[in-house]
């Protein structure tokens, strides 16, 4: 690698040398060009070449640093995305149910993985219900929904101390409309990182 670089550098020096020689040959017709001038010119040329080379090396270095930073940034973004996904991906329930459906369990497995990779994080599991049914019962049902997610995560090896539950019953709907579409969005567990 380095050798190649040197070859390149020497080539860079030699080729312009030839060019200068040829141009000088032409100029040699001119009688006023002296040997000293020639030598001075050559020296200047050389310095210039060196300067350029250094510049390039610097550029290269900068580029490499940039690349590295970008990579790091991408990784960071990925981490943040994972974190956001963890917080934003709710799990949903059927009416008056608190059992976890297969797709829900898949989501929870993902969350467990994330929690395993992020030792420091603790999570609050919020249990919610749709507006149907009565407030009091829904408070208990929301609690149960949060509990069932919590228990599932514990089974997947997450320390209980990292998991807290809060039931909001029907007090905090995600979708305030009064139809099945909204209700199905409201029967959920929401995950909040402390």
């Amino acid at each position: 690698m380095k050798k190649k670089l040197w070859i390149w550098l020497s080539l860079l020096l030699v080729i312009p040398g030839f060019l200068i020689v040829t141009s000088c040959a032409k100029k040699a017709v001119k009688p006023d060009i002296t040997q000293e001038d020639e030598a001075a010119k050559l020296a200047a040329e050389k310095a210039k070449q060196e300067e350029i080379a250094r510049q390039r090396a610097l550029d290269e270095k900068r580029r490499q640093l940039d690349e590295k930073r970008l990579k790091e940034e991408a990784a960071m973004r990925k981490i943040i995305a994972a974190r956001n996904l963890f917080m934003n991906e709710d799990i949903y329930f059927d009416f008056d149910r608190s059992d976890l459906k297969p797709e829900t369990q898949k989501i929870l497995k993902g969350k467990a993985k994330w929690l395993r990779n992020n030792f420091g994080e603790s999570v609050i599991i919020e249990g919610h219900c749709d507006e149907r049914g009565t407030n009091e019962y829904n408070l208990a049902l929301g609690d149960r929904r949060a509990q069932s997610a919590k228990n599932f995560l514990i089974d997947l090896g997450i320390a209980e101390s990292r998991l807290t539950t809060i039931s909001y019953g029907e007090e905090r709907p995600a979708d305030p409309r009064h139809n099945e579409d909204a209700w199905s969005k409201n029967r959920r567990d929401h995950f909040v990182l402390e």
Partner: protein
Amino acid sequence: MLNKSVIKIIFICLIATVFFLIESAECRTEYDYIDINNPFIRKIPIAVPVFKSISGSGGEKFLSQEASNLLSKSLEFTGYFKIIDRDAYLVDPEKLDIIVSNINFKNWTGIGAELLITGSLFLKDNIIEMELRLYDTFKGLLIVGKRYKGVVNNQRKMIHRFCGEVIYKLTGNRGIFDSKIAFVSTSSRNKNIYLCEFDGRNPEQLTYNKSIVLSPAWSSDAKWIAYTSYAKGKPDLYIKHLKDKHGAIVAKKGINITPAWVPGKFSLAATLSFSGNSEIYLLTGTGKIIKKLTNNWGIDVSPTFSPDGDKMAFVSNRSGSPQIYIMDLDSGQVKRLTFQGRYNTCPNWSPRGDKIAYSGMGNGQINIYTIDVDGESPALQLTHDAGNNESPTWSPDGSLIAFSSTREGPCRIYVMTAYGTDQRCLLALPGEQTDPEWSPRVIDN
């Protein structure tokens, strides 16, 4: 032998004929029967003429008008009475007689009034003196008469005290006139507890949380109130003295919800889920656990006690759907009460002890039902096709039920009789009102 028998036969025949004749003669005085089984008027028609002003001054007249109107309204609120329109009176209001010896009761029976309340009012130096009398117009008898004296500001209290007398004479119960209703309202943007009088008047805010406050519950001396609040971020139980504002907090892991006071005791039941499952516990008034009442894998929530405190009804989904169960607190035996429908919650035990009101879901609607505690007759549906109706609560005399309903869009508090008649909105406040809880009689207020 033969002759004898013939004589015997003839004798018998004769006796028979005589009996028959007597029977016929008897029937001469008998009469037909017809069935009368459908009263058209399902309330007691009562006349409440404007009270007589003793001095006749303007202020006095105004107060008389106000007092008699309040009396009419308060009596009407109970659902027992039909107030006869004053325009139908045969008696000149200026020449109203208020004492039994002067009253011509025919004037009142003639317009269908079965009861009559007369009153007189005397105002002097901001002190009013009222004499109020309740008459049976058909018998021409004074049922009860009272004299009240106090500052003008206490007029409302005086009138309500007399209403209490009237109801007491008719039902043997003091009624609702000194009771209050606690409820949850979003008038201040956040859910907070408010109190108002039995008829929805004078609403006042009780809690000033910036979170969510739910499920108010009165102690049976009406001095304490327990409720659920998210003030600390999760549903905790607050037990507060209404006047002194001191109290206790139960803030265990999980939910701490649906308090219900044990009648006559400084202890209450509530649902706690610190064990990982929601169970009903018996707590002291200071928030210490006395014992666990339910023990079941399912949800157990919303306790309510029989008036004698021996039994507790609650909601459990142990059968797969929320239903109401009754637990005998001595034996711990649990019996399922509701079998109609798949979603029956919010039980509230009548102060009379015989019925439980609850809200049940059917055909996508939630309605109020009452059911006999013995569970032997089918539940009676009290609300029909009028939004969702939840959280029934009995008045202290068991004659009325307050509940929340979305019949007019936003959720508001409504009142009806124990038979579902006379459904009306209790009060109109901004925001939504839910979770009404009728207090016992407030003795010292």
